[in-house]
C-alpha cells in the first residue's frame, strides 16, 4: 500500500503539472480537492482518466470521484480494491 501511495503521488504531480508541490509536502491525508493540494474540477476529470488509463478503473458516475479523491490514502485503498491492471 505504501508503494501505491507513493506511485499515486508521483503520478498526480506529473499528470496535473503540480510543479510547486514536492513529494515531501504531499501528505497521505492531505485533501486533494479544494483546500489542501487544491485540485479543481478539471483536475478531478483528469484523475478519472488516470484511474482508467493506469489502473483499468472506469467510474460510471463522475460524482463518485468526490469520495474517492478525498486524499491519497482513500484513493489508494479504492484502487487496491477495484484495479483490473
Amino acid at each position, binding site marked *: 500500500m505504501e508503494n501505491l501511495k507513493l506511485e499515486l503521488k508521483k503520478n498526480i504531480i506529473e499528470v496535473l503539472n503540480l*510543479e*510547486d508541490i514536492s513529494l515531501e509536502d504531499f501528505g497521505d491525508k492531505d485533501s486533494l480537492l479544494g483546500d489542501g493540494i487544491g485540485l479543481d474540477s478539471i483536475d478531478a*476529470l*483528469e484523475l478519472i*482518466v488516470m484511474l*482508467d488509463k493506469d489502473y483499468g478503473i472506469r467510474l460510471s458516475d463522475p460524482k463518485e470521484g468526490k469520495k474517492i479523491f478525498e486524499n491519497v490514502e482513500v484513493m489508494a485503498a479504492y484502487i487496491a480494491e477495484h484495479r483490473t491492471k
Partner: protein
Amino acid sequence: MSEKLYIQKYCSIKNKEVYVGGKLMFSSETSIAKDFFKSVYQFLDIKYSKFFKMDNLSKLAFLSAEFLLDKNVSEEKNTAIILSNNASSLDTDRKYQDSINDSENYYPSPAVFVYTLPNIGIGEISIRHQLKSENGFFVFENYNANFHYNYENSLLQNNKCDSVLAGWVNIDKDSYEAFLYLVSERGEIEHTEENLKQLYNL
C-alpha cells in the same frame, strides 16, 4: 475619454528574451518554450500554482500581462483585452489530437482540451487580474496594426473601458512571440498605427 490616447507600457517576449519598454528585462539560454516560460515565471517571483497547468499559449499571454498590469491598481480593473495571433491554439490542438489518435489507447485529456481555444489565455489573465471586461481574440496572418489601432481606439473612445491590454501572442511548438501593450489616456508614446508598427518591429 480624451481624444489623445497613449501606449502607456509595452512588452515583447521572443527569442529567449523579455523586453519591457524597449529595455532587456530577462534572458535565458533555454530554447525550449516551456522551460523558458518557467524561468520567466521564477524571475517574476510570483506564487500562482495555476500557471503550471496552463498551455504554452496561455503561459505566454499570462507572463506578458504580468509585466504590464499592476494587480493592485484598481483603476486597471476596467481593462479590455484584445489579442491576436497566427497559429490560434494549434500548438495545444496537436497535443489533444495526439491523445485521441489511437483508438486502442484512447484517453482524451480534459486538462489539455480546455486549452484548445486561443482565447483561454485571455481568461487566465482575467482571472489573475479579476477583469470582467470587453475582450476578443482574432487570428491574422501577421500582426495587424491597422486592425488593432482601430479596435482599441473604438473601445476607448466609446467609453467601453478605461484601458486596453492588447497585442500579438503567438506560439507554435518552441517558436513563440508576444508583443503586448497597454493603451490608456496616460503615457508618452501616442497610440497610432505607425507607433504600433514601429514598436512591434523593435
